[in-house]
């Protein structure tokens, strides 16, 4: 399962690879693999570079366990939105309403739990439903009435922001019940003997690593069963070691502070689930098909309207989830919550390899794009860069990322 998230999606076997390369050959294979998947690995390398730069500039503060934990908490909602936005953009659309929608859902949650004392699990379900209805309404106009998504969601952006202010009467409403707060700020509970690490987090991390490795091995065996070409053994092992090392590092960092944040678990589940959905489900394939060539998809029997509708419904649910996470973290619903978040989510998707014309992109890409922005935010905060300059730099980062992609494509094309 998690192969889809950790491995780069469609992982083509190098043609003619025999797996018997020796020392120097291995380096060659790695470089060759990187070159062929420039688009896939480029952003990952950029993320690594940005992390390294800020780690140096902040004298290592960026990678302190406490800060890594913070980084996750601060960016989780953008990442949740970015996943949904990636689907929308792959389908060839855009959603400008998600920032307002998160505010609306936060306000709705506050009205339910603070003003009407409804139990928080019930409120969560109602909020997700509200998001689904909002997304479905927009999806209906876009898919079945054929109104451009830019227009529909621009209207949605105004409408939902307005409803938020009506619900909150311009005030900030809080605090939330404990259970809901945990969603934004909480960590996994701790059990067992006193080690220097958070036991449950360690355990979860090890289970995850074991699972990923087993999955990769199983996948490789299946490929051989179907007598398909596989990646050479040494390259495959190198990949496994790299993935395991990356996961282990993050696990140790989180485990040496308060453990894994609850919202990270939610996010992790979403990444795995949506990665799998987009790569391996018929529904996911149909999203790529309508974004890549709508008339051809129609003539292939893809129910384009239904798929578009569901993509927007899904975006509504994810926006609701993000809205709950924001409200829980701030411990209050504010009329200005989620302002410009739609733009951050859209930027994440494009930094992560989406295309304006649709049909291209991966869930993992959206996460990498979101993390690039997140690390920039966090790193510049640590360096006490003002928000004015932060905006300038983030804008330039978006331009540079997409510019590099366009340049790279032109170079490899004609």
């Amino acid at each position, binding site marked *: 399962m998690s192969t889809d998230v950790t491995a780069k999606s469609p992982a083509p076997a190098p043609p003619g690879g025999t797996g018997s390369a020796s020392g120097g050959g291995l380096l060659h294979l790695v470089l060759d693999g990187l070159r062929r998947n420039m688009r896939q690995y480029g952003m990952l390398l950029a993320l690594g570079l940005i992390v390294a730069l800020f780690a140096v500039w902040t004298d290592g503060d960026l990678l302190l366990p406490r800060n890594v934990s913070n980084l996750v908490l601060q960016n989780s909602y953008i990442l949740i939105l970015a996943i949904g936005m990636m689907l929308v953009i792959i389908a060839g659309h855009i959603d400008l309403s998600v920032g307002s929608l998160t505010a609306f859902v936060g306000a709705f949650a506050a009205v339910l739990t603070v003003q009407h004392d409804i139990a928080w699990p019930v409120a969560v379900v109602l909020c997700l439903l509200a998001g689904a209805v909002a997304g479905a309404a927009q999806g209906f106009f876009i898919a079945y009435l054929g109104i451009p998504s830019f227009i529909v969601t621009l209207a949605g952006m105004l409408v939902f922001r307005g409803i938020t202010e009506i619900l909150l009467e311009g005030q900030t409403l809080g605090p939330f019940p404990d259970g809901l707060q945990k969603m934004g700020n909480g960590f996994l509970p701790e059990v067992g003997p006193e080690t220097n690490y958070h036991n449950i987090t360690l355990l979860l991390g090890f289970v995850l690593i074991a699972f990923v490795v087993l999955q990769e091995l199983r996948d490789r065996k299946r490929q051989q069963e179907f007598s398909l070409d596989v990646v050479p053994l040494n390259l495959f092992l190198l990949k496994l070691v790299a993935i395991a090392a990356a996961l282990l590092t993050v696990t140790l960092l989180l485990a040496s502070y308060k453990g894994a944040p609850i919202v990270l678990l939610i996010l992790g589940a979403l990444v795995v689930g949506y990665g799998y959905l987009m790569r391996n*489900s018929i529904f996911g394939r149909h999203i790529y098909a309508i974004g890549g060539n709508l008339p051809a998809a129609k003539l292939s029997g893809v129910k384009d309207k239904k798929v578009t509708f569901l993509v927007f419904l899904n975006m509504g649910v994810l926006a609701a989830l993000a809205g709950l996470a924001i409200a829980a973290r701030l411990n209050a619903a504010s009329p200005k919550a989620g302002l410009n978040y739609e733009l951050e989510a859209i930027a994440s998707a494009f930094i992560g390899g989406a295309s304006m014309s649709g049909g291209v992109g991966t869930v993992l890409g959206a996460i990498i794009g979101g993390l690039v922005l997140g690390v920039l935010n966090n790193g510049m905060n640590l360096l006490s860069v003002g928000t004015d300059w932060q905006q300038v730099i983030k804008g330039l980062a978006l331009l540079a990322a997409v510019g590099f992609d366009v340049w790279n494509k032109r170079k490899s094309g004609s």
Partner: protein
Amino acid sequence: MAGPVLEMRSIVKTFPGVKALSDVTLTVRQGEVHAICGENGAGKSTLMKVLSGVHPHGSYEGEILFEGELCRFKDIRASEQHGIVIIHQELALVPFLSIAENIFLGNEHATRGLINWNETLRHATELLRRVGLTDHPETRVADIGVGKQQLVEIAKALSKKVKLLILDEPTAALNDEDSDKLLDLILELKNQGITSIIISHKLNEIRKVADSVTIIRDGRSIETLDVKDPGTTEDRIISGMVGRDLDHRFPERTPHHPEEGTAPALEIRGWTVHHPIDQQRKVVDDVSINVRRGEIVGIAGLMGAGRTELAMSVFGRTYGRYAGGTVLKDGREIRTKTVAEAVANGIAYVTEDRKHYGLNLIDTINRNISLTALAKVAKRGVVDEHEERQVAERFRKSMNIKAPTVFEPVGKLSGGNQQKVVLSKWIFAGPDVLILDEPTRGIDVGAKYEIYTVIDKLAAEGKAVVFISSELPELLGMCDRIYTMAAGRLTGEFSRAEASQESLMRQMTKDKEVTR
């Protein structure tokens, strides 16, 4: 005999990883129509891009002499200043601007940035007269047909004082009538002293207008033939293009003799469809056809005959407004209101426009092949990627799709290989009836033969095949039976024995004046 106006000597053009032109020499005489002919990917278009400055001087090796002068064009403007104008296969007109605005786009009649409309319209009218167009120059380009748009392109070239006109497959999108007009115009321009280079697949066209033909194969100029020479036959040109003799242009077929009594695999009765916008107009008018298992049935017709419209309206009502008729499969009436229903009933439609309606060009070969029948490689909505890849590998071998892996984006393949992917996709869907719309359009001779073999095999396996084509020899070579259509009506039905180019063409042009 006039001297050369253009000499291209030992042109070599390399792209990263590919040598597009390895040694091309081309000599064009003053005032002639010179055809360039070769398989797709032979390098014809690249050669013309070198000549017109799309690929600037310095990016290729070799010399270009125009009117005896060594040329170093750095862009298209530079070549246009010398009077070399290229008209690309895909027309470069802005649909929502007028004819006159398009003609002078980038070259406006203006003083200090302000357009002089009187002069623009006067000059446009004069140019339109020269190319034989009577439309008003203020008509929007979107409102005239493709044939007239092609003439507007030529008017645009004339406005640039063209001396050498390059036409890249100018009649590919035109019907016979418009093609004839265009070819006549090229001859007329020749009388006015304009030299033309015409890139074409159509050998009859070359015979009609060209004085000489240069054959290009694998990036090399093979030979230049005098078209008027009686030795220059179509087979002679074809053998030059593919480098081997083609004594069989079609696979050997054992004609199908349908058993009496069994119901046809597909029968369409009284099918009528109105135009999607102009709803008074019948695009398909009371058409009834049938096809049996193992049979290949052709539909011949000129552009606008309603063949594609018939096929698409039957296939999930993807064209026009339905106005009557029934579809029967094996004698039972079926619903084909949506594409999904049509596919579920075992019908496949392979489009004539694979780039726009057939393929997701940015996606890979394997994912394009599996799209229509994803359920076949999936369990409970989850696609088994290994099985999918295996399916794709199988088609890559059996259909001889030339690509390093099945993970290659389809957009990078040549036309013939793209067509094989579209066919694979629909064969994988497992239909009983295949409607093939111009399955060999725009692909080279070798790939055509491969496609014919596939079609023949499908019929031999008991599939019913409807074969829509504009190339009569192709229909005559492949079909057991041929219907003709004209202006939306069925005008004839021929057995393999009865059909000839002349008899088909007679029925294809029938009724035309009556409906106008």
